[in-house]
């Protein structure tokens, strides 16, 4: 079993490479927010945040925060030329109406049919769904960023989710710490994997069969993000 895996920054970098020029993108709270740092040269993504801002800028310098100007993670953001404000009903009209090109979220589990579980560990505690259930059912592409396995080594890519679902059949691509995997017609289809990780190792860490429908590329990310 390989010890080498991608850092969160590398996973976010890899996901950023697939965002088309001019795409409207929503980044989930936490780790997915990191994707905004890695927009490739010459491609411009426009970021949407659930609380009613489109096309916002980077985080302000500490001390320069305006707490009326935040993202869905309640972190301070900034204006840029082209920013637009709107209310929550309009914000989710954008989401639900299918106007977002990509939503990028974290996951507890993703099933081979595209089911996603990312809101509840099922252990009781206080439920909190936020905007994820809206995003995953309606964005044109739903990408998941995740470690390939849990902290205890259990697969997060599974034959079917055992945790409470966020959405059914919604995930289109998974960027894991070991591989890039698409969900196609109820199967996981491997697109890229770390060169250091064999097919057998990867399959052993994955809870459902990995299919291929062509060559599997090497998953190479910038070393400096490791």
């Amino acid at each position, binding site marked *: 079993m390989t010890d080498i895996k991608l850092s969160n920054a590398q996973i976010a970098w890899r996901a950023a490479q697939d965002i088309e020029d001019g795409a409207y993108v929503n980044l989930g709270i936490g780790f997915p927010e990191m994707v905004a740092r890695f927009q490739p040269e010459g491609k411009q993504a426009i970021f949407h*945040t*659930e*609380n*009613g*801002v489109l096309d916002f800028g980077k985080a302000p310098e500490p001390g320069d925060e*305006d*707490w*009326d*100007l*935040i993202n*869905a993670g*309640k972190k301070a*953001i900034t*204006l840029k030329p082209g920013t637009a*404000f*709107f*209310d*929550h*009903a309009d*914000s*989710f009209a954008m*989401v*639900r109406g299918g106007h977002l090109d990509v939503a990028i979220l974290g996951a507890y589990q993703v099933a081979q049919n595209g*089911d996603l579980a990312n809101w509840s560990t099922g252990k009781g505690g*206080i*439920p*909190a*769904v*936020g*905007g*994820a*259930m*809206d995003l995953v*059912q*309606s964005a044109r592409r739903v990408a998941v960023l995740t470690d390939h396995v849990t902290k205890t080594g259990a697969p997060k890519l599974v034959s079917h989710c055992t945790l*409470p*679902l*966020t*959405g*059914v059949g919604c995930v289109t691509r998974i960027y894991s710490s070991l591989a890039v995997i698409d969900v196609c017609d109820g199967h996981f289809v491997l697109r890229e994997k770390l060169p250091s990780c064999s097919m057998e190792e990867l399959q052993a860490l994955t809870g459902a069969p990995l299919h291929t429908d062509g060559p599997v590329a090497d998953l190479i990310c910038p070393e400096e993000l490791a």
Partner: protein
Amino acid sequence: MDKRISSAAEAVAEIPDGATVMIGGFGGSGAPIELIHALIDQGAKHLTVVNNNAGNGHVGLAALIEQGRVDKLICSFPRSADPSVFVETYKAGKIELEIVPQGTLAERIRAGGAGIPAFYTPTAFGTEVAEGKHIEVFDGRSYVRERWLKADFALIKGELGDPHGNLTYRMAARNFNPVMATAATTTIAQVSSFVPLGGIDPEHVVTPGIFVQRLVEVPTPAQEEELNRAEAVYP
């Protein structure tokens, strides 16, 4: 006709025990702290509150909950930097929680304001949040039927307000405020500045006055995030 009221206390005076109250804001952004604190002072109990979150620290909505005044909370995300007030109240069984996906929450409120008693959404289909709800297939896809959400009162925060209740908002502090304004029998707005009629360009009005029953000026409103960084506690 002049909807301006001289104090937050007067603006919230008639909210009775048992009222359903929508409170604007997303986290601290757009939260009408002074109106919430006036409601704490006023004493109404057994409230049902609709808010995206469940309060942060010991001010605003968290303080209202801490005072034991909220029987039920309808929200999408009861987490924050310091959710201890809600967590303890919930774990003690002293508050009922209805979790609604954020977009469905916004749309249910919008439906309440727009006279739409029910609508269908793809959100939450196949999840436990949709359990027991009516499901219908349109064009081969399954949707969940959701009901409108209305309130007796809405407490909202705007930026400018004129005597007829026309409002603007400040940046992302807009969030739930305009849509909640439409869905309450009585909408009470705090604004940073009163302006005369004509003081808001007709093209820039975000909430037309028809949705606002009372407004009060709070020139330098408290920002929940800053109160919490200063570890403020209300009252």
